[in-house]
């Protein structure tokens, strides 16, 4: 065993023992402030429900991690990959375990959410472990997207509850929550997130895909982690969900749908892991149905079911892995007769199959007893559905075990390491022990169920040799299941049709089509993205103009756009402004660059005259200086550009459409700028108290005129920074001129 494998097994073993010890010592609780700004608390507490799931995650973890320590090096060797990649898998498995433990212990919903998403991240890393494999990548992405996007619904639910009740502590919420829209909405969102995580129809499709992961990952993911997290959340939040009976009815419906979809597809599938994956969908359907029935009976049934299922399902996945390792095959029709060659594996997995199919002398018998009890309590129709479900389960599990271990095949059987077999045997022994002495298992389930039911939920397990309803239902289920198993070859056509229909219009198809559609849409939009400079500037100006126009239209303009009186003494000003306007219009005409530059200067010089006429002699001087500099600069730059380039540019004719477009852009920008300026300048000038103060303080600043004092002292910081701006501009110019543009 590599060091990372030993570490992973050790983590799981320590977690198991610590959980057990903490429970035996009377529980465990931590509660410290986390983010007081949001009243979040780091609160972790071990209760019956947490104990059940924590022991499963850690206990099954020990066995699966030990199995992985033998399986993964062989898997890597098959693929010709270096052995050190093993550490990545063990690390992610340990993360998986720790986040499951955190999830089941968390009492603050935000904290719970953190662990909830961590399980999704861990499973993503694990499903995508075989990175070079395209299908592994796609499957990992699918599992991640389905579970994390739906997880956001859980986040919204938490925030809805927080907004309504001011807390994120689950116990406080359960105490204060009352039926109403907030609980209904939050409950529905919680249920949606949980059901997606537990791979319930119609969001079940990611789970069969997730079998792209190495087998130990599947064994863990399907039993004690990830998928279990979904039903755990429903169990944890059940007192809230139970406030709205419609939510429980919804659970019931989705659970039944999942049992049917998963069961029928499991009956159809021939790939070992795929068959088991569909069976997980179906079996968590049972749990969801029982949570939908609710009450003490439902809670008790759900907890015992999760327990029995986790033990058996991990054993079956490990069986599939060992079988594939031994024979190199994973298709049922190509397998058979392994009972003689691998008797221990056959016995261990036989016990696991028996417990899932609820045969007597296994722990699983009692899980179906409780299921039948809960269903019969709800009504005859559900009792009938329950029997049908159990029959379906028996049929596909019988087919799985029989197909692998009975009959005959030409497969060559290579020896496998003992570590691929004994975890299965250990789990098989455990479920048989549970069938003979169910007491400890029942106690574990009972403590868990009490949390879900919000009160005592007795788990009564014993063999009764009488004609009570549950026994009759069990007998009926076995009989129907046996018939179904026999009749299965005739149903193959119908089952294939169902599977094909699912592939053609099912939710997985919706997922892949949306993903492909989004990528295609993205490419199409990308192709039409604006690329030239002119359009990029227009993309700022035109929307800005539209917004300003919208602002003018939507607000009362009373008095803003008044036209003041024009006196005779304004005549020079009007004339100069007219010259400026004409010069501005003239800039649109020239094709030669020099003329264009001169026309631009004409606009600037006429504005300088406007400043002079308005009494701003200093500003006018600055404007003249700037305009002169710019005119010279333009001429200088033109002399640097090869004359041929300038002529070529000048000869370019734009199309009529471009000209029309430019006209519209220019006109709208101009009109809108006018509106803005007019809107501001038509108001009376407000008093500027600072002006008086500047004048009064000019002497204190030892300045002869106020403008100098403002620039050099009162607002000297601005001046200093502006000088720095000039410096930076000089650096930029120097950089550009110095660097020969490398291609």
């Amino acid at each position, binding site marked *: 065993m590599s060091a990372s494998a030993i570490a992973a097994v050790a983590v799981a073993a320590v977690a198991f023992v610590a959980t057990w010890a903490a429970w035996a010592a009377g529980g465990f609780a931590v509660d410290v402030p*986390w*983010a*007081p*700004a949001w009243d*979040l608390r780091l609160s972790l507490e071990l209760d019956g429900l947490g104990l059940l799931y924590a022991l499963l995650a850690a206990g099954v973890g020990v066995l699966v991690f030990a199995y992985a320590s033998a399986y993964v090096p062989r898997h890597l060797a098959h693929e010709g990959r270096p052995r050190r990649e093993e550490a990545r898998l063990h690390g992610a498995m340990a993360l998986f375990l720790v986040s499951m433990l955190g999830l089941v212990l968390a009492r603050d919903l935000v904290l719970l*959410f*953190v662990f909830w998403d961590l399980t999704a*991240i861990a499973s*993503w890393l694990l499903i995508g472990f075989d990175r*070079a494999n395209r299908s592994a990548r796609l499957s*990992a992405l699918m599992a*991640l*997207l389905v579970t*994390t996007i739906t997880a*956001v619904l859980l*986040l*919204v639910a938490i*925030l809805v509850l927080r907004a309504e009740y001011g807390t994120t502590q689950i116990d406080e919420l359960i105490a204060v929550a009352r039926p109403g829209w907030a609980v209904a909405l939050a409950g529905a969102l919680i249920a949606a997130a949980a059901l997606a995580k537990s791979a319930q129809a119609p969001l079940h499709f990611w789970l069969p895909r997730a079998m792209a992961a190495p087998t130990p990952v599947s064994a863990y993911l399907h039993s004690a982690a990830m998928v279990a997290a979904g039903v755990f959340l429903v169990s944890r939040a059940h007192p809230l969900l139970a406030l709205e009976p419609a939510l429980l009815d919804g659970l019931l419906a989705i659970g039944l749908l999942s049992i049917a979809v998963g069961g029928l597809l499991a009956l159809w599938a021939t790939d070992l892991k795929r068959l088991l994956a569909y069976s997980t969908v179906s079996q968590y359907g049972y749990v969801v149905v029982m949570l939908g029935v609710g009450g003490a009976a439902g809670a008790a049934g759900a907890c015992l079911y999760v327990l029995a299922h986790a033990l058996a399902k991990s054993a079956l996945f490990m069986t599939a892995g060992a079988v594939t390792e031994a024979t190199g095959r994973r298709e049922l029709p190509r397998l058979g007769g392994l009972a003689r060659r691998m008797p221990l594996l056959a016995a261990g997995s036989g016990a696991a199959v028996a417990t899932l199919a609820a045969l007597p002398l296994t722990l699983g018998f009692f899980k179906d007893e409780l299921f039948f009890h809960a269903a019969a309590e709800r009504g005859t129709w559900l009792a009938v559905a329950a029997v049908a479900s159990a029959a379906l389960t028996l049929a596909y599990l019988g087919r799985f075990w029989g197909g692998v271990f009975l009959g005959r095949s030409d497969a060559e059987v290579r020896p496998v390491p003992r570590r691929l077999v004994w975890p299965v045997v250990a789990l098989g022994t455990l479920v048989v022990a549970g069938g003979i002495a169910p007491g400890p298992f029942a106690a574990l389930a009972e403590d868990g169920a009490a949390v879900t039911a919000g009160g005592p939920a007795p788990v009564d397990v014993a063999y009764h040799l009488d004609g009570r309803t549950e026994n009759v239902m069990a007998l009926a289920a076995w009989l129907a299941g046996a018939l179904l198993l026999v009749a299965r070859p005739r149903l193959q056509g119908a089952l294939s049709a169902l599977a094909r229909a699912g592939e053609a219009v099912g939710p997985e198809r919706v997922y892949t089509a949306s993903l492909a559609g*989004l990528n295609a*849409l*993205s490419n199409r*939009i*990308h192709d039409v993205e604006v690329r030239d*400079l002119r359009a*990029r*500037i227009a993309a*700022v100006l035109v929307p*800005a103009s539209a*917004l*300003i126009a*919208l*602002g*003018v239209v939507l607000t*009362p303009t009373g008095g803003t756009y008044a036209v003041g009186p024009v006196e005779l003494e304004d005549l020079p000003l009007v004339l100069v402004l007219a010259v400026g306007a004409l010069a501005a219009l003239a800039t649109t005409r020239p094709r030669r660059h020099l003329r264009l530059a001169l026309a631009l200067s004409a606009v600037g010089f006429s504005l300088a005259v406007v400043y002079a006429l308005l009494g701003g002699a200093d500003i006018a001087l600055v404007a003249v200086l700037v305009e002169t500099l710019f005119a010279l600069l333009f001429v200088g730059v033109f002399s640097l550009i090869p004359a041929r380039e300038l002529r070529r540019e000048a000869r370019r004719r734009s199309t009529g459409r471009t000209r029309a477009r430019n006209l519209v852009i220019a006109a709208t920008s101009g009109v809108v700028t006018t509106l*803005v*300026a007019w*809107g*501001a300048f038509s*108001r009376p*000038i*407000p*008093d500027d*108290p600072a002006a008086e103060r*500047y004048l009064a*303080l000019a002497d204190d600043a030892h300045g002869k005129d106020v403008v100098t004092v403002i620039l050099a002292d*009162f*607002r000297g*910081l*601005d001046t200093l*920074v*502006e000088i720095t*701006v000039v410096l*930076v501009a000089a*650096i*930029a110019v*120097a*950089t*550009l001129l110095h*660097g020969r543009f490398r*291609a």
Partner: protein
Amino acid sequence: MILVAGPLLVLWVAGLALAALDGRRRGVGVLAIAAVAVAFGLQAVLLGRVLADGPQELVAGGWAADVGIRLRVDALGAVFAALSSGIVVAALLQAVATGVRSRSLPALVVFLTLGLSGLFATGDVFSFYVFFELAMIAAYALTAASGTAREVGAAFLFAIVNLVGSFLFLIGIALLYRATGTLEMVAVAEAAGRLEATTAILIAISFFVAFGTKLGLFPFHFWLPTLYATASPPVAAIFAGALANIGAYGLLRFGGAILPNELALSATALIVIGSVSIAYGAIQAIGRRDTREVLAYSSIGHVGYILVALGLGGPVGLAAAVAFSVANALNKALLFLSSELRGRLTAAIFLVGVLSVAGVPPTAGFFGKAALFDAGVRAESWWTVALLFVGGALSFVYVFQIYQHDRWRPREQRERATPLGSAGVGQRLAAGLVALVVLVLGLWPQPLLAAGRDAAEAIVVARGDG
């Protein structure tokens, strides 16, 4: 107050000194890192002081507040100042570790940081513009500094489009001064409340377009994708993580604090424009197979969330806008800094950024996203919540798609040549530090959430109705 003036003085002196030195020499780079680090340290202390004792003030030249330029650092400014300088420290560290090819880069980065630090610290509208100009011109120069034809092309576009935005901003400031008769922000905010509706909304729109252009909001974003994808990773990190904060801060300061009535009036428009940006950025990002191009479009999408939070308004909405902006700046800086690095450790660092952008715990991005959802839920604006959900779902798609493409796919199947070999220690350290901050804020969100709350409070107090 030495804490207010200190960072500016340190950066200004260092910038002048560095301008005279050859930035390609390692010692010069280290000096620049030290200067920005000292400024960051002072700003971090200042942030602590502001959160404990309230806004810190200083009037330049020791004049009365109505005569000189008042520097006034409140929680909002202090958060953004420390955030931006911190990101610049990390980016500069990576630039120096990678090897600086342009002699002016360290000086320009220091001047850029000076501009940012100044505009987050000032309480004067015009002084804001001056510092803003300094930061922008340093940014233009920075893009041109490495000097390949493609980069100069991108820099040219960046400069021209942003100059249009700056010009609109200047018009807005002129109008604001004309209408209120003062430049001091608190007084402007008071006077702005008495303006006619049309004048005020036109000023508000000029500011919105100006900051929208800085942020790279749809449809003002067309300069952004090429620039972010062509600039070197540290420079892109400075742009996305520090420079873009001008836009977020500007919208919060000018919209939230100075023109709150106009902000409330345009709530619907803000949410609509924000939504378009979210959808546009996300959908563009989905089809891209170059990490930095994905990041560029993702930036366009993510600034839409800031706008939506502003549109939701109220203390919760503003707090969400701040918390999300902080997380978003950290995420983008982290992703750009780690986008071109290879090796196992850097894959983990990059993954932290990926999770944070998607809003997956335990990262700062998760609490940024949670704050947005909280604002939507509390406003009972279910359309907004649905929008955030869809936008978030799309970001899950592109961010994990590109991660798998870039890090999982066998090298020969990638659509773009990715770098070979492992990154150097300094390069990893720079990205690792930001990743650490993102993780710590994810595990211990109190600073992030409290900063959002306090900054939002500063905005509400500044507008005088708190």
